[in-house]
């Protein structure tokens, strides 16, 4: 079970303000699908709108990145620089 961390905004919209919880998923892609099941629309929203930070490493978009049981997966809004 990976530990998922969401921003306040996303939690307000999809998870009844819960910002941290555990979810199944052997890869980031599988996690998206699992989140879509547990919180309809959440996985798709995260896939389209956020970068992924796994255990403190900004991996941005990484569908096939494997997740371990103790992985912390943080979703942060996509960042546009100048």
């Amino acid at each position, binding site marked *: 079970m990976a530990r998922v961390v969401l921003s*306040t905004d996303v939690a307000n*919209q999809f998870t009844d303000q819960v910002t941290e919880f555990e979810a199944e998923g052997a890869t980031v892609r599988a996690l998206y699908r699992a989140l879509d099941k547990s919180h309809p629309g959440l996985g798709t929203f995260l896939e389209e709108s956020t970068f992924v930070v796994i255990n403190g490493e*900004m991996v941005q978009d990484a569908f096939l990145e494997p997740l371990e049981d103790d992985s912390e997966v943080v979703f942060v*809004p*996509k*960042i*546009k620089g100048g």
Partner: protein
Amino acid sequence: MGQEPVETKWVGKRIVRPDGVDKVTGRANFGADMNLPGMLEAKILRSPHAHARIKKIDTSKAEALKGVHAVVTGADFPELKAASVDGGEAQVNLKDLGENLMARDKALYDGHAVAAVAATSASIANDALDLIEVEYELLPHVIDVEAAMKDDAPLLHDDMFTSGVEPQPKKPSNIAARMEFGAGDTAKGFAEADVIVERTFRTAATHQGYIEPHAAVAEWTEDGQSRIWCSSQGHFAIRSMTTALLDMEEAELRVMPAEIGGGFGGKTTIYLEPVALLLSKKSGRPIRIVMSREEVFRGSGPTSGSVVKTKIGATNDGKITAGEVELKYEAGAYAGSPAMPGCMTAFACYDIENAKVVGYDVVSNRPKCAAYRAPGAPMTAFAVESVLDEISEKIKMDPVELRMKNAAKEGTRALYGAKFKQIGFEETLKAAKDHPHYSAPLGPNQGRGIACGFWFNIGGESTANINVNPDGSVTVVSPNPDIGGSRASMVLMAAEVLGIDPEKIRITIGDTASIGYSGLTGGSRVTFAVGMAVVEAAKDVVKQLCERAAKIWEVDFEGVEWRDGAAHPASTNVGDFDPLTLGDLAAQAGKLGGTVVGASSINARGAGPGFGTHICDVEVDKETGRVDVVRYTAIQDAGKAVHPSYVEGQMQGGVAQGVGWALNEEYIYNDDGQLENPGFLDYRVPVTSDMPMIDTVIVEVPNPFHPYGVRGVGEVPIVPPLAAVANAVSHAVEKRMEQLPISPPRLLSIIDG
């Protein structure tokens, strides 16, 4: 235990820049320098109104003018679809992009393009613009961000319903989005505070101010081989946006990168390219469009003006107990201000248990804002760093010490969610405190300010090719325009891996047909991300060379190692062979299977956040209100400075832009919503004589996810200067600066009370 710096031979050296001679001799080709046989010049007609319905456009008289070959309006473009398109860093709303490029039903700001003419000369094209008759129905307009948020404000888009609010409003408004980040309990945190400071800060819209105006040359062909030459921060994004707007396949358009005369985020979008290509299609001739400086100001994106309300509480011993920020950012005529990164960066320098940030993205009748160096971050840093400065005064604590007590470090979870790995913020604070500038005495009417800043830095899709030439020299092909010295950095990293002198390596920027897709040159990502691709491509070359040496020596691949630019036996057990240099192997390439070409395509991960601390001294003329920056020191964690001169240049450039933002630059509108200062005489950017020598200190705390420890460096240096300057002025006049720019009349009115 953090990652130790990597020992390097070439990375970190100050080699001569590959583009230097071309630029100082005038040989470099910028966007406007391309000439094609039969080329026409094009000009764009722009709305003089801030908000108007376009009832009719009659182009017949313009089309009849001798020398005019084509006229286009919004009606000539394919119908805009509700879709998004790749913008190089993120998806872009195609409908907004197209309407901003050329107005359809409404002109939404003074300077909004409404038509374009191609003619045999620029003067004929300008004459033809005067012959285009546009019937406008004037509509009420709104410029100010807070006025635009009011219930009764003139509405720009009747289909804009604020996102991020549950339930979503049914009434349209100019507030495109609300966003929120939070942690802990701010009410509890403020209750624990001994001192609370709350203020509202305002910044003006400022332009990126690049020297080179936007320019594009386009040639449409009927056989799907159209071409565009332009200067941009990412020709792959220019291709995707242009083809999406003109219903073309990406393979039908080849975009050639020109040298770029500054971008700072402002050249990450399109203003001219589809217009030029459509005019070319209509006229059957190549087209060149070059913006005037006035058009750059009126028609291309500045950054957002902002209103940022900030409240911070702290104990008397300097612990920040709570912080709140509410920010309102001008997006211009279409949604998409940098309110989100403004929220995310607001408290990123600090470890604060109880914090809340709310942001609003607001449209008004101004040009659509574009990215500008660390988009959104300088404004919130101005607010937060000013309030921290005031708190340090109130609790009588050294301002660096206050920041040190609350500094983010490895393990700190930023309010936006990510937990930091190895970062160098504390090291920049320590370097500031130890710097002679920090303890130097001040003169009369002088003040000193310090401020800090943060930027995420990003990675993303990146490619690189390395061709080993028959004589042993090497050509690197990079996919990204070089704005801040990336060519030199790529050469150094390739030299490091290949083990050869950088003098043996030349680098070129590939066009969209000659190398695989790469994201924008932006977000401080190129030296980090494309650099990783170059490192991977160079490793690919080394692998192939070692494989060939193994075959020549008839030993296993594992028996060969690469060092000092040559294959060597990995140990005496492998055998006694003379080293085979890169040149030896390149000379025999044909006999060994063909030319050695290294290639890499990655989605770079592991971008390392950057932090900076700045010290600024100003002197105030209390009779005129003029502020002179008399000494400035910028300190920044670069992870590893691949080419230190370029890192220092980035730091100095960011400071110069930030000083302009703080002291002079602002868009000034009249009551009709028309921009009154669209030129460098009235829009005052700092010039060399305004600036002292900007001292720089590069701190190197390696990014553990990069082979040499590199972090991005281009964005951070514009984040602290607004507050550093404002804090310095506040101390010089003993009154807190809440609004930028601190121009002489504004400062005089504050001094006079």
